[in-house]
């Protein structure tokens, strides 16, 4: 039977020798020993240390390929936001905007483990604070991945919808983003986001090389979203057929760092339940049954110090019934797009983003976002260390055609926004980290 040279007791033994050597070396330096001996001891110690490092690296490398190796990582961030709009809180109403406040934004625990040669498990749990000063716990991802090589892998569970570029790239760790905030279009559901960021179901994905270009693709289907855009349908889906999503990205070999792609998402959204007790004819906007289609196109270029990407989304909601005064076949079309550019200079990355949201006032499916806004952001990211970044960001937001809805802004802000072309300036500072 073959025995490995690298065994815990051997490492322990070498560690023990080192532990003995270090103090004896210190003593040797204090004592009037001949210089040659000290030099030799130092050389021996350096050699020994290098060998221990080698052994440790070898053990780590072997362990990384073993089954059931649990990897635990995490992310967190804390920020300060100052806003030119000061909210007043009406009784019983939580402000969506906070001004001049510190926020413990999110703390994210990420775990994965190899369950077999080609089977891995992943979970991501986020502890997030909300605008009611409460802490919520969300299992953001929980999945098992079956890997059949580069061409195909299958994931089952709760995963990020591969809709567009951002949602499938940055996930929850703010440290991964260059900027502090996300573009409006890709906010998560519980932050009033308008895309179905998470899906519970099954995902097929792969990557194929065609010589001059490389194609990555994914096809997903799952529960989709229900009568409200949050929370996602995590335990049961209210509609059959299920939501489907397809993403296709192409990377030409001739231009390293470039990727262009498209995605399309289709879902059926149930009407609000029967006779909604809150429904008052003509006054309460309810959406009824909907066909939802979200098409997206994106372009990314990340090479050397340059990082730039842009996305455009078109949302179509078609009424499928005449409930609540809606007219079957009527469609709302909404848009969102952004462009971000960053340039890394040493540990600093100045960035700029132009972000546009255009939500129709007839759209009753996004009650908290019936807003059109253009946001100009400039900022800088400073990578203080390998896993800590401090970011500063200034946002200039031009709201227009804002329509008050349920659970939205405090009255004084709504009034100023409804008057049209309200301007809001915010400044944010964030420290974010990964471990």
């Amino acid at each position, binding site marked *: 039977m073959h025995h490995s040279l690298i065994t815990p007791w051997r490492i322990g033994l070498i560690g023990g020798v080192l532990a003995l050597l270090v103090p004896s070396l210190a003593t040797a330096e204090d004592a009037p020993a001949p210089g040659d001996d000290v030099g030799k001891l130092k050389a021996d110690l350096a050699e020994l240390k290098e060998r221990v490092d080698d052994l440790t690296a070898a053990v780590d490398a072997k362990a990384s390929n073993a089954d059931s190796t649990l990897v635990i990582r995490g992310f967190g961030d804390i920020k300060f936001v100052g806003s030119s709009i000061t909210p007043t809180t009406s009784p019983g109403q939580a402000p969506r905007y906070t001004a001049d406040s510190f926020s413990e934004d999110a703390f994210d625990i990420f775990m994965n483990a190899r369950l077999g040669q080609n089977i891995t498990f992943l979970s991501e749990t986020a502890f997030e604070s909300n605008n009611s000063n409460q802490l919520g716990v969300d299992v953001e991802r929980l999945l098992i991945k079956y890997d059949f090589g580069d061409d195909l892998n299958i994931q089952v569970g709760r995963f990020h919808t591969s809709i567009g570029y951002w949602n499938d790239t940055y996930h929850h760790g703010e440290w991964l983003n260059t900027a502090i905030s996300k573009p409006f279009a890709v906010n998560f559901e519980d932050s009033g986001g308008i895309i179905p960021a998470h899906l519970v179901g099954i995902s097929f994905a792969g*990557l194929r090389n065609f010589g001059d270009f490389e194609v990555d693709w994914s096809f997903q289907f799952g529960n989709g979203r229900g009568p409200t855009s949050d929370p996602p349908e995590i335990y049961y889906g209210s509609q059959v057929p299920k939501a489907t999503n397809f993403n296709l990205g192409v990377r030409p070999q001739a231009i390293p760092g470039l990727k262009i792609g498209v995605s399309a998402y289709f879902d059926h959204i149930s009407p609000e339940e029967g006779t909604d007790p809150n429904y008052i004819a003509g006054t309460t906007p309810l959406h009824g049954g909907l066909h939802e289609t979200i098409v997206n196109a994106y372009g990314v270029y990340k090479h050397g110090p340059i990082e730039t990407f842009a996305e455009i989304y078109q949302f179509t909601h078609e009424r499928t019934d005449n409930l609540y005064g809606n007219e079957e076949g009527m469609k709302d079309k909404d848009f969102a797009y952004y462009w971000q550019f960053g340039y890394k200079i040493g540990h600093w990355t100045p960035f700029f983003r132009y972000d546009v949201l255009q939500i129709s006032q007839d759209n009753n499916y996004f009650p908290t976002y019936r807003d059109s806004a253009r946001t100009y952001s400039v900022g800088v990211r400073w990578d203080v260390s390998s896993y800590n970044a401090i970011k500063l960001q200034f946002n200039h937001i031009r709201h227009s055609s804002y329509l008050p809805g349920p659970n939205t802004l405090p009255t004084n802000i709504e009034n100023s926004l409804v008057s049209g072309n309200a301007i809001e300036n915010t400044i944010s500072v964030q420290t974010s980290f990964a471990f």
Partner: protein
Amino acid sequence: METKTMRTRARKIIHVSMTALAVCIAPLGAADYAVVVNAASPVTDLSQNALIQILKAEKQSWDGGDKVFLIMPKEGSKEEDILCSKVYSTDSDGLKKYWTSQVFQNHMNSAPKNATNRVALKLVEEKPNAVAIINAKDVTPAVKIITIDGKKPGDAGYLLKE
């Protein structure tokens, strides 16, 4: 059977010659960095694009289907410098961020381990699916140097040239 033996012998001769050549050439000028695989690996050449895909973990399987066991150079080493500039277009911190993103996007279970040349050589020698980048002058005959687009360390236009 005889043909196979001859082929194996020829491969060994080429392999030893390439290693010897790399060892001789390296000290003459700027260092070249060799892509090394297990001596039994059927891989003898990779296109530049395929190598970059492997090093970026975009391609995680060899053509035969075996998982690639990627060994990254020790942090702060010359090998890491050359990869950062020629492959990843970033610096050492950017590389850490790259691997963290890959893990977080569930493209891989864990970041590849960093190892000194000595450990990397040992692992490549042991593991049939391993690949590492090592200064050509440090390469031993126990592993195999593969060419990139037909070019070996020391050739003009070789990708991993300092």
